[in-house]
């Protein structure tokens, strides 16, 4: 059963995408969209149960373990939320003219093709397939980012495809080097399978693995948005259609992190945990520090969220860099928390932007008066992103911090805390100014659309629940995933 699911899962979005090409009706497309996402979610939950009972499964080039499952769950939930959100968003976008009715099916099909490549990325056991799927996500999402077809969108898309392709070339190079080291040990039975390489990892030549890991980290780190390779991220996240922004920020950059984690485990087994952790720590700190000034000085709402993603990817890298059970657990939890929260933030920002028809935060005022629910959700998302208890991000940031204290790495902790406090102030200042005050005359006072609210509520509930308590089954996945990495 579980083995079958492994090849069914990537097929679901693929088939959905193909089906979408057969129709032009908006209602039908939206139904297909939601149905496809729902099936994906249900199957993912089934797979999660199977893996809980029977441990990791593999089939050909695919393999699922608890580590992959966490990312898969995040993907499924966000895809579903995006599908629901798209219904209302699309209606508005069509009215304004941001989207064109006759090219809708290609948009929907691309979104699902994008999801399909992400699923393959998560399930891939073969490092080569992982790379191919990762480049596939670049290709599909590049078109989506430039989908609006205006000057800025196309520029962001071009920057995205060039920068990430440069980066991902390094990733392939690192993969080749690690594969070379592995086939040197494995001899004729050489394969690019992560599980197979892990089984011989302690025997690999540490020097070579080190170089391979650096290349892979820089490569997939570009895709993950780690500074200083983050140049594409704010542009792409701000210019893409809002649902795509949510997917990019919520899932895609996390999948690149999954790839980094895969290489990190190999490197840790081959040349000790110290080396990969140090490297991740440095990149994490750079990301957090680089993102801060841009967040403070930002005027563009979606760009602000983009830079915020850089910061949080940095925090995840810090968690992995501090290492240990707590740090790794915290990092994985942060992956989920940030994914959910950031998607919520993008949704709320998207509706606010549509209402005011501007992305300039200084022009968005008094959201609470014109759209009370949306404003509340935006404020909740901002509070959570800033790391206020009792929201989920607070918990995971605390865990990362705890791991750092356990390591006794005071310099990193000081920098980390300082930046988090500054960003806290900056973000709440921006959010407060938007939500409260007198609404500007340009603000539309239409009632709030239902489907975006539904999607946002879904995410907000998950966000709050994860902040209050972590469900036992999910906790089990996280713990076993931590073991995969820490061992």
């Amino acid at each position, binding site marked *: 059963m579980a083995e079958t699911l492994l090849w069914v899962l990537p097929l679901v979005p693929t088939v959905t995408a193909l089906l979408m090409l057969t129709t032009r009706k908006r209602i039908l497309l939206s139904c297909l969209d939601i149905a496809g996402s729902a099936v994906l979610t249900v199957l993912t939950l089934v797979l999660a149960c199977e893996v809980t009972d029977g441990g990791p499964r593999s089939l050909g080039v695919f393999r699922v373990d608890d580590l992959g499952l966490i990312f898969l769950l995040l993907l499924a939930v966000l895809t579903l939320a995006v599908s629901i959100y798209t219904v209302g968003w699309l209606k508005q976008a069509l009215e304004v003219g941001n989207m064109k009715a006759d090219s809708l099916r290609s948009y929907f099909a691309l979104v699902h093709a994008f999801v399909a490549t992400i699923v393959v990325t998560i399930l891939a056991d*073969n490092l*080569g*397939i992982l*790379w*191919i799927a990762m*480049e*596939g996500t*670049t*290709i599909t999402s*590049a*078109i989506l980012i*430039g989908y609006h*077809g*205006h*000057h*800025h969108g*196309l*520029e*962001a*898309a*071009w*920057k995205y*495809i*060039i920068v990430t*392709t*440069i980066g991902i*070339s*390094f990733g*392939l*190079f690192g993969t*080749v*080097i690690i*594969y*070379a*080291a592995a*086939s*040197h040990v494995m001899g004729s039975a*050489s*394969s*690019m399978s992560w599980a197979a390489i892990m089984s011989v990892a302690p025997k690999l*030549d540490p*020097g*070579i693995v080190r*170089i391979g890991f650096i290349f892979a980290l820089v490569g997939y780190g570009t895709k993950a948005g780690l500074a200083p390779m983050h140049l594409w991220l704010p*542009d792409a996240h701000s*210019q893409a259609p809002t649902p795509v922004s949510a997917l990019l920020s919520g899932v895609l950059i996390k999948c690149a992190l999954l790839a980094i984690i895969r290489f990190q485990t190999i490197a840790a087994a081959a040349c000790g945990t110290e080396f990969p952790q140090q490297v991740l720590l440095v990149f994490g700190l750079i990301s957090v520090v680089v993102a801060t000034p*841009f967040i403070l*000085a*930002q005027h563009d709402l979606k*760009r602000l969220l983009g830079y915020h993603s850089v910061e949080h990817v940095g925090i995840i890298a810090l968690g992995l860099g501090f290492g240990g059970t707590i740090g790794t657990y915290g990092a994985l939890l942060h992956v989920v928390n940030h994914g959910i929260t950031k998607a919520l933030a993008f949704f709320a920002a998207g509706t606010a932007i549509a209402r005011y028809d501007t992305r300039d935060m200084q022009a968005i005022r008094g959201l609470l008066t014109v759209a009370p629910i949306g404003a509340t959700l935006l404020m909740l998302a901002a509070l959570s992103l800033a790391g206020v208890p009792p929201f989920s991000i607070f918990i995971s940031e605390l865990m990362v911090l705890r791991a750092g204290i356990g390591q006794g790495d005071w310099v990193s902790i000081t920098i980390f805390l300082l930046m988090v406090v500054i960003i806290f102030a900056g973000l709440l200042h921006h959010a407060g100014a938007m939500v409260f005050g007198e609404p500007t005359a340009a603000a539309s006072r239409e009632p709030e659309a239902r489907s975006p609210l539904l999607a946002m509520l879904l995410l907000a509930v998950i966000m709050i629940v994860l902040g209050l308590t972590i469900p036992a089954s999910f906790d089990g996945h996280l713990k076993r995933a931590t073991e995969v990495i820490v061992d």
Partner: protein
Amino acid sequence: MNIATVHSIIDDLGALLLFTMILIVAASQISRAIYAVATQSLFIALAGAVLATATGNVDLWVIAGITLIVKAMVLPWLLHWVVRRMDVKREVEPVIPDMATLALAVVIVVMSFHLSASLGSVRQSITGNALPVGIALTLNGVLVMATRKTALSQMVGLFAAENGIFFTAMAVTEGMPLIIEIGVILDVILAALVMTIMVLRVRSTVDADIADLDRLRG
């Protein structure tokens, strides 16, 4: 063929590859860069064929054939088509001066030889100096992508970088598994197509060159 002959042939091909790479870095006209990258792919295919004969590895024949058809013929043809279609007036447009780029290219080559010294133990005796050449090609391809403003030059850089990775893979492991290599080539083709579409789209919708897109900052 005995080992020594293969060794020296691969070495010589490596030198020719480096030469084509220098031509790409130094090219002041986009069509010359395209010819250079096509020649480079041809040499990669030749290297694959030589290794295939030497090791009796059928996969390598397939890879050599695909490289020859796709990278030495189809993709350069595509690029030439775009050049004609767009009536390219602005040729290469480097971000930093050409001489600086060339100097960087030299630094990269020397560094690659250094780096490969520390990768000594995975080097296969049969492929000799292929590893540093592969690294140098990859990094120089990236250099071209990073230091050129025009879309076509960046695509040429991408192809050169992929060539470098292929050559590295041949150098260290006699090639990656066939299915992976095919997947990688497929990705490159798709990326090239998407980039081409984007270039044409930028031209048709906002009437600008990719090089003019520089409004997003901060």
